[in-house]
């Protein structure tokens, strides 16, 4: 592209010698963004080019369209789903929604943090920061839960070590060496401190 621009500049200098090589002069009086666009006949070789130029062909214009299309319109509000597990509700709503997910109900310490977080509105930054903190606590709880069920988690396997071995063996060796060096260094430091 740089080369294209240089060639265009040279051509402009030859066309307009009165500018004394000042091609910017021509650019500044003749802004034309469209001049880099290929002619229409070239563009029309691209499959479908311009087929949605007409706004009538654009499915989201106007942005708000009533009545809604493409769905089976039901009468009234949806029937309320029965609540069988604890589900949190944003304080910025009047109550629970008619439909909701029931995956992974809150539990343990992370559940308690999340319970607190959902007492705060979404507009309060602490709401989101507490949820992120709960996620990290939940990660540790996940390992404890695995062990509780007699399952030792294959952490490296879960991180895709087999793919790393196949597609980036050199990188894997490098990461292993760095990890060993860091862990070894920390252990040496700790031993020294214990000696004194």
């Amino acid at each position, binding site marked *: 592209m740089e080369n294209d*621009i240089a060639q265009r500049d040279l051509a402009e200098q030859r066309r307009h010698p009165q500018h004394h090589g000042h091609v910017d002069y021509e650019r500044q009086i003749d*802004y034309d*963004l*469209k*001049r*880099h*666009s290929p002619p229409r006949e070239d*563009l029309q070789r*691209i*499959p*479908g080019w*311009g087929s*949605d*130029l007409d706004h009538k062909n654009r*499915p989201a214009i106007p942005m*708000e*369209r*009533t*009545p*809604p*299309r*493409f*769905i*089976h319109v*039901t009468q009234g*509000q*949806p*029937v309320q*789903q*029965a609540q069988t597990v604890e*589900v949190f*509700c*944003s304080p910025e709503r009047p109550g*629970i*929604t*008619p*439909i*909701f*997910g*029931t*995956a*992974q109900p*809150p539990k343990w310490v*992370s559940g308690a943090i*999340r319970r607190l977080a959902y007492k705060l509105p*979404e507009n309060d*930054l602490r709401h989101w920061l507490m*949820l*992120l903190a709960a996620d990290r606590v*939940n*990660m540790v709880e*996940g390992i404890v839960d695995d062990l509780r069920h007699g399952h030792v988690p294959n*952490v490296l396997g*879960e*991180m*895709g070590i087999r*793919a*790393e071995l196949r*597609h*980036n063996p050199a990188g894997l060796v490098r990461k292993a060496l760095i990890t060993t060096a860091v862990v070894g260094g920390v252990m040496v430091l700790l031993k020294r401190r214990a000696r004194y």
Partner: protein
Amino acid sequence: MLATNYRGPYRIRASQKPDPVIEHPGDAIVRVTRACICGSDLHLYHGLVPDTRIGHTFGHEFVGIVEEVGSAVETLKVGDRVLVPFNLFCGSCFFCQRELYSNCHNTNPEATAVGGIYGYSHTTGGYDGGQAEFVRVPMADVGPYKIPEDIVDDDAVLLTDALPTGYQAAEMADIHEGDTVVVFGAGPVGIFAAKSAWLFGAGRVIVVDHVDYRLDFVRRYAQCEVINFREVGDVALHIKKMTDWLGADACIDAVGCEASGSLSQTITGRWTMLQAGAATALFWAINSVRKAGNVSIVGVYGPTFNAVPIGNALNKGITMRMNQAAVKRHVPHLIEHIRQGHLNPKEIITHRVPLEEVSDAYHIFSSKYDNCIKTVLIPPRAGAARATAGSVIH
């Protein structure tokens, strides 16, 4: 059933979980035949989305066969082949009545800032997703779309999110004939946004990324110009040079919160989470668009805040439009484009992986190994599709 099981940042596995059940008379249970890994799944996988609970099943791009329907379901029957838009929506709330299906107010109790989404944390409603053998599909009369016989599953699964999102990104950019459109991001959504920009009559389409194999792919697939931002110095300056010093008519952010390219954004957005992800692409989009141009955002950001040059946006008179794609609004139109040969979505699929290898599939997609662009997971009970799955580790 076998399902993906999130265990913490960068850790995921496939394990057995109880089958989903009908919890509401409007529900259906769908047997999944294909489920994609979406770029936005990586935000979950990397632990950036608040309230992503251990044990969660990801997956909001899936197609399958209806296995069971609730007592109130009228339009679907057992055996129907359906694509399921990534958004859950009721069809009757204030927003659904205006066709804003991605902004439904009746499917996410946990937040008003976002609608319900399958397999995308409890911030979007706490629904398990489709990277599993079976999935609960609420509002079965409203969301799922019966796949026409002439549309293959590989195309249909991309109609659940990636293609409509790319198409809506181009539509929100309000492209006029001959416009110069810059797309930030050469992932699946950016690729489809670039391809869609031509449908709206663009005169130039330029895609910006730093992953060479993806730039090579999009240059061929979407017949566009490409910029590797690692090779050009300042991106906004480079784009100004390419556009007679005006800037592009429209810029599309198809990257979101895990952008590369700015150390300060990476440190504050990705490493220390002092902001809701690295907003590098949006920053560049605002500074690269011309005055009174359009910026369209479909890249996903977190719910807190981001450092972007909003003062420049004001002073330049930029129009900014953004939303999650209202998938079902676009599907019939996009099916026509597929039929006419304007779009061939399945060509971007690079990996078909058995669900059992989900840990490795995520790692490959996240690390951009093996020229990976789009990964499809195929569960054990997917039927004939299972034969197309190939191991990524053997």
